[in-house]
């Protein structure tokens, strides 16, 4: 019964965050997953190896924000700010990583699709949170 209370449209944010976390363990443009690339690059001390952890970090931050907003809707503004931080990591990742892998852009792996879907779901969730609350307040 309690679980049913938390199953609403905002669950999309949780799904998006989980998809984003999962994308870390699949390949984006090469045969290696992002986590494997992080391990390889950090072992040879390449300065931006941490970049490959950004989808994971973004997913975790957005998962916290999504869970918070489902648990207590009053925290919506703070959650939106947490979402901004989480998606900020993803934006940096997209800009830096995609421009690095520009030659392989025509042949993306499943990780890329999962990353984009997760990102869009979270974005949709934020807009949905803000619009729904606005409508509720107008109705009052």
């Amino acid at each position, binding site marked *: 019964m309690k679980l049913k209370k938390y199953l609403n449209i905002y669950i999309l944010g949780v799904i998006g965050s989980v998809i984003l976390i999962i994308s870390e363990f699949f390949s984006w443009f090469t045969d290696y997953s992002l986590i494997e690339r992080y391990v390889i690059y*950090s072992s040879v*001390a*390449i*300065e*931006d*190896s*941490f*970049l490959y952890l950004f989808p994971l970090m973004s997913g975790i931050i957005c998962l916290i924000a999504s869970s918070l907003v489902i648990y207590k809707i009053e925290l919506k*503004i*703070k959650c*939106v*700010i947490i979402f*901004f*931080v989480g*998606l*900020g*990591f993803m*934006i*940096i990742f*997209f*800009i830096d990583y*995609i*421009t690095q892998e*520009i030659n392989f*852009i025509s042949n993306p792996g499943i990780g890329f699709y999962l990353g984009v879907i997760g990102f869009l779901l979270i*974005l949709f969730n*934020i*807009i949905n949170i*803000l*619009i729904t*609350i*606005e409508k509720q*307040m107008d109705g009052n």
Partner: protein
Amino acid sequence: MSTGTIYHHLETLKELVDQKTDKRYYLSELGVYAYSSLKNNIETIRSPDFTHRELRSPILRKLMKITSKRFIQFEKEDKALTTIISLSILITGTILTGLNGFYSFLLFFIESEQSNMDLFLQILISFTFIVNMIIFFIIIEGISRLFYKKKENTFNFFISFAIIQFPMVFYLITHLIFKSFWLLNLSVFNLLDKILLIVFQVWSLWLLSYGLCAMKGLKIESCLIISLLLHYGSFTIILFVLV
């Protein structure tokens, strides 16, 4: 409405209304004062949910302490000071953009590919900070006019608009320090630089939402939607340009 209900409301308003000899009810002196106060402050009263509820959060209060809301939602006597602060931010931002070799695009900075630029080109690039701010303002003003029919406070909003870029000036300073000491080649500092960019961008987005809310009387939710769409819209443009 029943007589009982009317008497109940009259009892509640007893400080504000008086019954005169003609048996009619009129506003008392306090009532007239309360009415004028409500009428003259209608814009402030329209968004109480934002100013009173959202800013109760300790994190947001600390953020607003650093970037004083006094200069975003300024009074007449603070106009000159706000203008000076805005101009200082613009000048500092312009110089720092040039020194870092960045192009400014809304809340993003794109690194110039040329390593040894001549001075004229560097100065020209640094002015993208000012051009960017003007374009940014036009887009925001346009959106609030087109979609929300809010035409008020345009000039005041313009005067305080550069304050939105205040956190980005912090980022430019830290980036310049990292760059000058070749620290960006180290993994930790490279990561720190990226995290600082994200944090300062979010701070700027919050200031943008706050400014819109205070100057245009929009709800904080609508302001956050505008900030969000603009930020992710500019990200998409950058991605397409770079690809």
